């Protein structure tokens, strides 16, 4: 018991200064690729057209790495509508509709001492009944479509849907996205989005007027 306390003190503060400070160690290939040289690029996800990269489609496959280089800055998510009512206590429920597990793992990372999103007044609930936001990860599979709708129905209003990762935004190269099943209020790009991107999206959704 005592030793746990000493161990903790000796370890110091691990938590990132983000969003007040800069984001450290942003995974390079979750940031936006920028064109460096001319040449033919075959983007399997169809994210590149006319030299511009649509991050909502990018799957971090590096097929463009000969001519494009990521800029290293965290991507900003698209916030269509926010939920300012939850500014002090923001509860989220994650539903996995068909992911590869990476997005689940990154959302789970928000708990760890490095990102520690509780410090920002954000919490995970165990039931959509208590949730302000529904984080959808993965493509919408046939088996989970009903469950996704049921979870949305079960949430009290006001509520928002956060499509997290390319799969849930557009379906990526695997299936169909959340569009057409539920209205997506926030789109967090990335395959998987870095914890910073998710955190940033949550903050901006909460603070949006």
């Amino acid at each position, binding site marked *: 018991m005592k030793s746990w306390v000493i161990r903790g003190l000796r370890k110091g503060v691990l938590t990132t200064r983000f969003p007040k400070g800069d984001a450290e160690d942003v995974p390079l290939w979750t940031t936006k690729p920028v064109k460096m040289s001319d040449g033919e690029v075959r983007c399997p996800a169809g994210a590149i057209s006319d030299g511009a990269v649509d991050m909502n489609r990018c799957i971090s496959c590096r097929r463009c790495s000969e001519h494009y280089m990521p800029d290293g800055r965290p991507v900003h998510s698209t916030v269509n509508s926010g939920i300012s009512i939850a500014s002090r206590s923001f509860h989220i429920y994650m539903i996995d509709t068909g992911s590869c597990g990476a997005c689940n793992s990154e959302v789970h990372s928000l708990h760890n001492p490095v990102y520690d999103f509780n410090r920002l007044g954000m919490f995970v609930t165990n039931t959509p009944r208590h949730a302000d936001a529904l984080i959808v990860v993965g493509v919408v599979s046939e088996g989970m479509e009903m469950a996704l709708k*049921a979870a949305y129905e079960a949430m009290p209003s006001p509520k928002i849907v956060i499509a997290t990762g390319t799969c849930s935004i557009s379906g990526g190269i695997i299936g169909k996205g959340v569009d057409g099943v539920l209205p997506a209020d926030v789109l967090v790009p990335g395959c998987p989005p870095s914890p910073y991107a998710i955190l940033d999206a949550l903050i901006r959704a909460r603070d949006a007027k």
Partner: protein
Amino acid sequence: MTPMFFLVLFSIPPLFALVDRRCAYISGAVVSVISALISGVLLGSGSTSMLTFSGTIIFRLDALTYLFLLIGAIAWFAASVYSISYDRTGRINSLTFSISILAMVMVIVSYSFVTLLIGWELMSVAGYLQIGYRRNAGALPPFLFLVFSELSTLLIIAMAAVIYSATGSMSYRPFVSVWALLLGVMGFAVKLGITPFLLTDWLPVAHGSAPTNGSVLFSGTMTMAGVYCIMRFISLTEPYMGIGVLMMAAGAFSLVFASIFAASSEHVKYLSGYSTIENGGSMLIALGAIVVSLYYHDIKLAAFAAGAVIVYVFAHTVGKAGLFMFAGLIERHAPGGRLDAFGGGMPDTSSAGGALDAISLAGLLPFGGGIGEWMLLETLFIMVTFSNYGISVLSVFVGAAVSLGGGLSLVAMSKIAGFGTRGGRDLKEGRGMHAGVMITGAAVLLLGIFSSYLLLSSGNAIRIVSGTTVAGLIKGLLVVPQGLLITSPGPDGVFGLVSPFYLALLITVFSSTAYMLFGFRSVRRRVPVWSGGTSAGGSYDSCQYSNPMRFMFRHLFPAMEKGSSELPANAAWSYAKRMASRYCDCSAEFGRWFMNSSINRYMLYIVIALIAVLVYVAI
């Protein structure tokens, strides 16, 4: 008024039954109403009348008879109304049903052992036939019913023999024999479901397998007949403390186990059957308390305990009749009679009636069952102050058992009331059935609210047993007018008090005020259940409701199979049942070989022969 009147009156429905079953039931209902009115009027009058044919055939009417005729008639009325819609089979059911009632009337108005035994045996035969001729009835339930009925008959015959050898008369006379009383109490207690060695399970099997209107008679009024007889014989002999103690101990023991089995039973009728044993136990405790109080010359307490028995037997007879009718309705729509397989949809009338019955049987105030339980507990509390330490300790233990049983019965009753009344109101059944249930529900509610008046008007009946009335205990206090407050006679004046009328009034006032204030404004939202995103499964049915009970008392149920609809059988019972069924098989084989006919008829032949002998002796 002559006893012949009631006997003739109740002979009408069996005659109609030979013609048409509906006529039998309608005439049964009419006859019951007439006899309820007459006995209700004569109950307070204190009139008696005797009818003697010879030295052995004697009938008598007195306050105690009127009281039990009144209680019985209410239950028979409800059961007859119920049967009009319930019974869709041939005439045998209606014939045996009305003969059963006639036999019970005969038992109650008898004043000699011969007529008592004839009535008693007739009751057994009619019951046996009613169970045996039900479609899909197995060999075991009717056989069990008969075995235990005959056991009770044997004990009563033994009692009669002991008394006859002492007094030289077959008529009821005051007698001085501890053995006679012991044999009698044991014999009659069988009808209350109290049998030694934890072999209580025969009653739910036998009563549960009968057609519902039969179950109503067996569990409601046949138990009442047993209580009547014990009360009658207590009044005829001096109080033997040992027997009183034995009754209290046996009652407490059966009560606890029966209430555990009731709470963990899934079959609606078995649940009700176990509840009968539990109530039988309570009544036996109260009867034992009368004996012990009389032994200590505390006639006020004895009168109070007799009052407890009367309220209890009223609430049990009518309430249990109602509960069995309610269970019969559920059984029709639940595969295997399992409560967890019942889809719901009971209409308002029977839902309300069934719920009222169940609440009363759960022992809640201000219902009849609650008043009875309160009076019983008060009696036991006061007995703690007796000078004999043994009695004090016994009273504490018995009181604990009664409380425990009351708590456990709340599980069983809330289960049947909760899961039996859920869902929409779209169940299609004849109106008579719903009306029958509602009659009993209203009766137990009214009984509870006006129990002080019942106690006052059955003063003469109580006097027969205890030597005094409870008139002195019915009082008034502050705003409670005279006659609406029941008090219990402690060693230093009033020990405890309750006014069921005022309880009912306050509950009504508060709940209707709350409803008027908030009820109309509340918005009901129905949202789909969140169950992991799918609608499948996860329902909370009655089986899960009582699972904690099964788990807590798992050592009592070694024989219970996973997910079986069998009884939560105890070990002693499992063994006895195996032996019985082996015996049954053997005798069936023998019967086939010997009579080349059905075993039921063979059994019937034996019993009828016995009655014939009795009648021959009588003449």
